[in-house]
């Protein structure tokens, strides 16, 4: 009896293995409709004018870049024949030009051919001096984009680019059609409502109906390059609500096939997943939840010189104090309470891709209260009568700010408790996200002004190469009144060794060589008193069991391979 069970089980498993890999009878539009839920509703169908990730992802169904990052973070050719490298001659030896070759016979969804002129136009569109293109940094250092022939695009950079895959690569910088956007250059761009919401693209779907901030209806692109794809005839992207109800409509009621960004308390999510209708998908990119530690004095008494390099922080520039603060934190508990499957404890600043991750920093993974106390003792901070440590008449008291968000407030409360235990007084503050992340130079509450001792937020970088991201930690990037508080070095940390490492990175080509320098820079940052890495965060979405082919991707749009999605029978 038992043997028979085993045998049937094995037979079924074998059946699944043979048919489960790909749809057996692939035919365009055979699988009906796919329903996607974006609780942050889609506002516009172009990443170039968008104000959020959700628009970029919705647009990725329609407009495509030359190449995308796949779920492993490797480049995959989409509109081109292959990825140019120095080895195959696509990238020049001096690292100044890259040449892409479009696939043959590519058509826009209106039936006209895709040519290199469209790529040239896309560059002109985004870099127009009077425009407000949100993705202009993808085209930084590009001096020229030219059409060598209708299928060949040559991009020239002003400086050698060891990593030349910025322009027209990834979900941020897709190709747009010249004919459609020709009258939408510069200041006219936002007025082209029709083009911005019904873009003509090369992707698997095209827009049929667009209701801003509500629902987008799409149908299979009749001119898509693979005649058997997409499997779905129509797609609907509904917006509105909140992450919890989005997760519910996939995991519990099964009304929708895919819900984006279902970041809710892990407990609640696990309960919903127990209904068995769908599964939670996670993918880890480079998003890092961290504590930035102010290296300058935020004391209000300093007036205009508050939080500027003129006044170093009285105690947070001491590595021992910051290391003690870091050791007192139990990162596993932070992950468990706040992120569940979408979080991992980390001590690194560059948490991914694996090649660039430093193996040298594991000391913070385990909470060590005694070690933390010892470090503070060594640094000369002794416990006063009220349990708060003091040194030279100054209390070890910290103002800790972050954005308003239930997960962050829970983490704040936990960290406050641990810090209190080692004799640190903590005052908590939370600021509305639109203010905290906004860069209004008039507001005292932005993360750049940093009028606090420590602040918590998450940041990441596009693609897999962190050069630009690390570049934010150089001395020249320190925000201050003279730069209208612009600049990415919010901790106001300045280190000559780090600046030298970065200069080296700018000259190093080849992934392995770059990884060495990146790890060196990472180690310099995490061993400084400027930052306390907390949690490597992933993207979290949910899909019903019947939706097959979804490959959760943290390096590009989550809908990057929607052409391959199909309905499991």
């Amino acid at each position: 009896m038992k043997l028979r069970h085993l045998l049937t089980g094995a037979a079924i498993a074998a059946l699944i293995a043979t048919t489960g890999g790909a749809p057996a009878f692939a035919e365009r539009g055979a699988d009906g409709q796919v329903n996607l839920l974006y609780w942050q509703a889609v506002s516009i169908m172009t990443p170039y004018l968008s104000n959020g990730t959700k628009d970029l992802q919705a647009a990725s169904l329609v407009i495509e870049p030359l190449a995308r990052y796949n779920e492993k973070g490797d480049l995959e050719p989409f509109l081109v024949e292959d990825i140019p490298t120095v080895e195959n001659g696509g990238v020049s030896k001096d690292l100044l030009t890259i040449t892409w070759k479009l696939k043959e016979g590519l058509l826009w969804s209106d039936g006209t051919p895709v040519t290199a002129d469209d790529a040239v136009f896309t560059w002109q569109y985004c870099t127009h001096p009077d425009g407000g293109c949100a993705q202009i940094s993808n085209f930084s250092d590009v001096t020229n984009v030219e059409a060598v022939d209708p299928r060949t695009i040559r991009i020239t950079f002003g400086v050698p680019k060891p990593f030349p895959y910025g322009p027209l690569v990834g979900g941020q910088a897709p190709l747009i059609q010249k004919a459609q956007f020709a009258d939408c250059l510069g200041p006219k761009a936002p007025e082209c409502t029709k083009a911005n919401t019904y873009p003509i693209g090369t992707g698997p779907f095209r827009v049929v109906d667009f209701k801003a901030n509500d629902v987008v209806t799409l149908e299979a692109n009749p001119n898509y390059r693979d005649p058997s794809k997409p499997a779905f005839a129509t797609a609907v992207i509904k917006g509105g609500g909140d992450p919890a109800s989005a997760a519910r409509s996939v995991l519990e009621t099964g009304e929708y096939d895919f819900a984006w960004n279902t970041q809710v308390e892990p407990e609640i999510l696990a309960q919903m997943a127990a209904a068995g209708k769908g599964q939670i998908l996670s993918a880890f990119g480079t998003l890092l939840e961290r504590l930035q530690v102010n290296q300058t004095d935020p004391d209000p008494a300093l007036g205009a010189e508050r939080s500027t390099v003129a006044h170093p922080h009285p105690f947070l520039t001491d590595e021992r104090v910051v290391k003690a603060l870091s050791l007192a934190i139990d990162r596993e508990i932070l992950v468990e309470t706040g992120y569940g499957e979408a979080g991992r404890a980390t001590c690194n600043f560059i948490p991914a891709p694996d090649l660039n991750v430093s193996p040298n920093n594991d000391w913070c993974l385990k909470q060590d209260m005694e070690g933390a106390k010892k470090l503070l003792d060594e640094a000369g901070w002794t416990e006063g009568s009220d349990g708060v440590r003091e040194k030279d008449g100054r209390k070890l008291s910290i103002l800790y700010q972050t954005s308003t968000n239930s997960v962050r407030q829970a983490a704040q409360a936990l960290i406050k408790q641990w810090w209190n235990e080692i004799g640190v007084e903590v005052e908590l503050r939370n600021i509305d996200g639109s203010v905290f992340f906004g860069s209004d130079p008039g507001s005292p509450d932005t993360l750049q002004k940093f009028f606090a001792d420590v602040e918590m937020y998450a940041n990441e970088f596009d693609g897999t190469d962190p050069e630009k991201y690390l570049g934010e930690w150089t001395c020249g990037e320190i925000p201050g009144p003279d730069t209208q508080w612009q600049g990415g070095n919010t901790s106001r940390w300045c280190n000559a060794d780090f600046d030298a490492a970065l200069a080296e990175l700018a000259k190093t080509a080849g992934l392995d060589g770059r990884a060495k320098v990146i790890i060196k820079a990472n180690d310099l940052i995490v061993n400084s008193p400027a930052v306390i890495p907390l949690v490597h965060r992933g993207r979290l979405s949910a899909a019903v069991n019947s939706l097959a082919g979804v490959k959760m991707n943290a390096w590009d749009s989550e809908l990057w391979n929607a052409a391959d999605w199909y309905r499991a029978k």
Partner: protein
Amino acid sequence: MLTYTLRRLLFAIPTLLVISFIIFALLDLSPGDPTANLPMTIPPEVREKIRESLGLGQPFHIRYLLWMQQFFINEPLNLLEKWTGWTIGDGNRLRVISWQTRSPVVDLIVQRLPQTLWVVGLAYLIGVLIAIPLGVISAYRQYSWIDQFATLFSMIGFSVPTFFTGLALIVIFSVKLQWLPTIYDTNLRVTDAHTFWLQIKQMIMPVSVLALYNAAQISRYMRAAMLDNLSQDYVRTARAKGMSERSVLLVHVLRNSLIPVVTVIALGVPTIFGGAIITEQIFRVNGLGQLLISGIQSADMPLVQTLTFIFAVLIVFFNLIADVLYGILDPRIRYD
């Protein structure tokens, strides 16, 4: 009455101008940055450029005057063109453009109106239809079981927030029983009996949540007004004259009690257009309430400004209607 109405209408113009200025100033002073929702990977200098392209670099009064021109001149002209098919000028006018969606705000509002009117408006209507008989009966039979029930009903409606009743309904009818959809499909077009049934199904939960809330409020007003009138001398006179209970209650008392209630109902109508922010969010009705809240969250100033101002117009207008109705219902009140 006519001169009174005209006078009030004329007086409304400066009031609304002041309101529009206050809204604009408040929004301008409030913190919030339209580029705050951009991914953190977008560098600050690009954000600055985006803000400039939105016109945020210009001084306050220029932006206010520009909005006034767009809202009071360009938009009405545009509407006129659409309705009549005429072309006025070169037809190339700058409309009030939302920063978030880069499309004209008025078009967004027109797109959102149907679902808001259907869901919130119907809920208001049903609420009134429940509240008036309930108020009448519970006042007439004060302290009876039906009055106790009505009191309990309105206590629940008052004190249980819509985000709770909404969620409770979803858990019962969508998650457990799987009878009703949790998500309102704005793409649904009613063309036959089947789609009509689908429309009803998706409206049941949001409408009942809102109707409960509305009925709770109005039924208390109705009950109080009825109680006031039931003890009046004219009721005793009517009964003494041998009128039937039915005509005493429904002709004399009800008509007099309706006067304050009608005012309350009329004043509540603008809130329909304001949408029901929470309920719309829970059921993803995506009407005007959701439009407003998403505009606020993304610091979309033209959208929030225009929408709030339209609400202000409606409130001023329905205040006038309430006053005029009062005069019609109560012959003792004369405005001229």
